[in-house]
């Protein structure tokens, strides 16, 4: 009776370019019709518009601050993407990120370990918490929504319990100054970390058997199982990967804040859910699983950060800014969709 849950073929199909790898002869038309191309255009248009009309948008301060947000939110989006592969999700991403960052702070401040081992412990902690999610999901066969809803509360609650909601504010100088470096006056090193994470993920999904197996398992668990893939184990890996990258995001946010604080992602870490889902989905990652677009997720983050920052610069009035943000987002994706449809039509008419 639950076969329907697995049939990804019945979902409305995205434009060709979203599914990689696209057939080579259709690569160009696929690219022109893809939302990667669309996002690039949208980003270019908005940079131009805000550059012309929003006072201060192209100032160094602002470009720097945008680059920093893109760095952190990009990693958050990429973390969620790795678990969207399974067709599931991780509501506890923010909670895992905060818990892992707290572990890093504890290791630095209370254990007195160095930066490298502390970071290692933090990322391992994130991976372990993610793996716990994955294990519960595959053994109980409950939906990851319910599982991560519960574990989000457990992880975050345990962290508050152990820490008494007290953060760690004596991070080593290297870390806090790292967060303030301005490369060429406008680029935050956090952006480079995001690009590094993205490059690794791109490599995994594109060129390794492990990555392709994760995608295959997510696209159709039944078929993957029949063809001999260890679907359960792969899904646990996906969740662990999500936790590990979430931990990186948590540390990045702490570096930005100059301290590890339990409140950085809001109650239960739930404030991060929006950027976490928005970027990959805008970039063409399917919520039904089995497909990713690393580049799309990054472009999605850039797009969102640019319109957010630009709208603030226009001084619309804070209470209306959310409305404007929604309208711009809606308008942009609808226009993009119209453009993609036309591009595809033109290419199929040949």
């Amino acid at each position, binding site marked *: 009776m639950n076969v329907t849950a697995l049939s990804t073929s019945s979902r409305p199909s995205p434009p060709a370019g979203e599914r990689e790898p696209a057939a080579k002869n259709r690569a160009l038309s696929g690219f022109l019709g893809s939302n990667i191309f669309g996002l690039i255009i949208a980003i270019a248009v908005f940079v131009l518009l805000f550059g012309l009309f929003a006072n201060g948008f192209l100032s160094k301060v602002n470009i720097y601050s945008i680059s920093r947000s893109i760095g952190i939110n990009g990693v958050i989006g990429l973390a969620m993407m790795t678990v969207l592969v*399974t067709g599931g999700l991780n509501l506890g991403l923010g909670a895992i990120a905060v818990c892992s960052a707290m572990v890093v702070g504890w290791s630095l401040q209370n254990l007195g370990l160095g930066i490298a081992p502390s970071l290692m412990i933090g990322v391992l902690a994130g991976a372990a918490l993610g793996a716990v999610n994955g294990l519960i999901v595959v053994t109980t066969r409950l939906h990851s929504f319910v599982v991560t809803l519960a574990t989000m509360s457990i992880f975050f*609650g345990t962290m508050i319990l152990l820490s008494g909601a007290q953060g760690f504010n004596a991070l080593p100088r290297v870390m806090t100054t790292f967060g303030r470096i301005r490369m060429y006056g406008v680029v935050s090193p956090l952006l480079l970390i995001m690009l590094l994470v993205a490059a690794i993920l791109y490599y995994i999904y594109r060129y390794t058997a492990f990555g392709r197996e994760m995608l295959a398992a997510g696209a159709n668990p039944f078929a993957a199982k029949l063809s001999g893939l260890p679907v359960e184990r792969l899904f646990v890996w996906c969740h662990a990967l999500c936790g590990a990258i979430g931990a990186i995001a948590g540390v990045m946010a702490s570096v930005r804040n100059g301290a590890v604080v339990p409140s950085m992602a809001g109650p239960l870490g739930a404030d991060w859910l929006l950027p976490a889902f928005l970027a990959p989905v805008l970039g063409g990652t399917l919520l039904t699983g089995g497909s990713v677009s690393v580049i799309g997720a990054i472009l999605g983050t850039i797009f969102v950060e640019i319109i957010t920052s630009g709208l603030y610069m226009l001084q619309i009035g804070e209470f209306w800014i959310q409305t404007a943000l*929604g309208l711009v987002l809606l308008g942009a994706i609808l226009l993009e969709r119209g453009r993609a449809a036309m591009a595809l039509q033109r290419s199929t008419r040949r």
Partner: protein
Amino acid sequence: MNLIRNALRADSLGLLLVVLIGGAALSLARPEFLTAYNIDVILVGFSLTVIYALGQGVIIAIGHMNLALGATGCLVAVAFGGSMQVWGLPVWAAMLFGLLIGTFCGFLNGWLTHKSGLTSFIITLATLSIFKGISLGITQAQPFYGVADSVKAFGSDRWGPLPETLLVALPIVIGVALFLGKMIPGRQMLAFGGNPNAAELSGISRARMVILAHTLSGLLAAIAGMMSVARLQLASPAIGDEWLIASFAAPVIGGAVLSGGHLSVVGTCLGVLIVSLINQALVMLAVDPFYVQVMLGALILGAVGLNRLRESRLGNAPVLRLS
């Protein structure tokens, strides 16, 4: 009698047992659990939550999601309160206004989702931002206090042993159950959710299904929004903020499949009750505030895990549902 048959179906029975055993244990530990006042508290919470949970449920049924559910409820609450306080509308007119706004918001979600061919996730994320922004813009983050006394009374008064809010919620629950179980558009919605392509081939209109489900969701969100105003005695722009996760949790605990095609109304009701029972227990047993979150998560996992365990004992668990 669809309801009774539904209740006896395997996936809801387990949840029912969880609710009954949990309730019994709690009333043994704390006899006050069964006082009229406390039952009233539970039922008022239930009335509100079940309406917006079903508002999400009808969307889950077609395999979509409505992230803007809470924002719709919020906008309606603000419009309802504001039209009474600022425009001095009578209650019935304000209610009508609220219902219209909610229905329109839902229709807009459905229409945009259908026309764009994009996932409802993106569309409702954008409208969430729009609706919430309008609510904040109108109110400047201040609640409207000018709620009519009759509305306030509705939120507090009882009819016999039952809170008046339940008298609104119950017919809605039954209505949604009948709609999905008996009526043609409802059954079509489930069929469409199970397999959109097959449904389309058999002549079910995609546009109609998508718009219908979203409009219904908007309507339910509107009712829940106005009910919140009655309960809280003010129209705050923070109404609806906590609906999102709760609205998914109840149907999913109740056995709904996020990819569509299946929604148990009884299961959803039990899902709402389980979560509220857990919250009650944490308050009544005076759990240390620092332990509350941990216990909450563990109990949710325990409750749904127990149900799943029972299912697999009976051998009717899905063979492979990994996502």
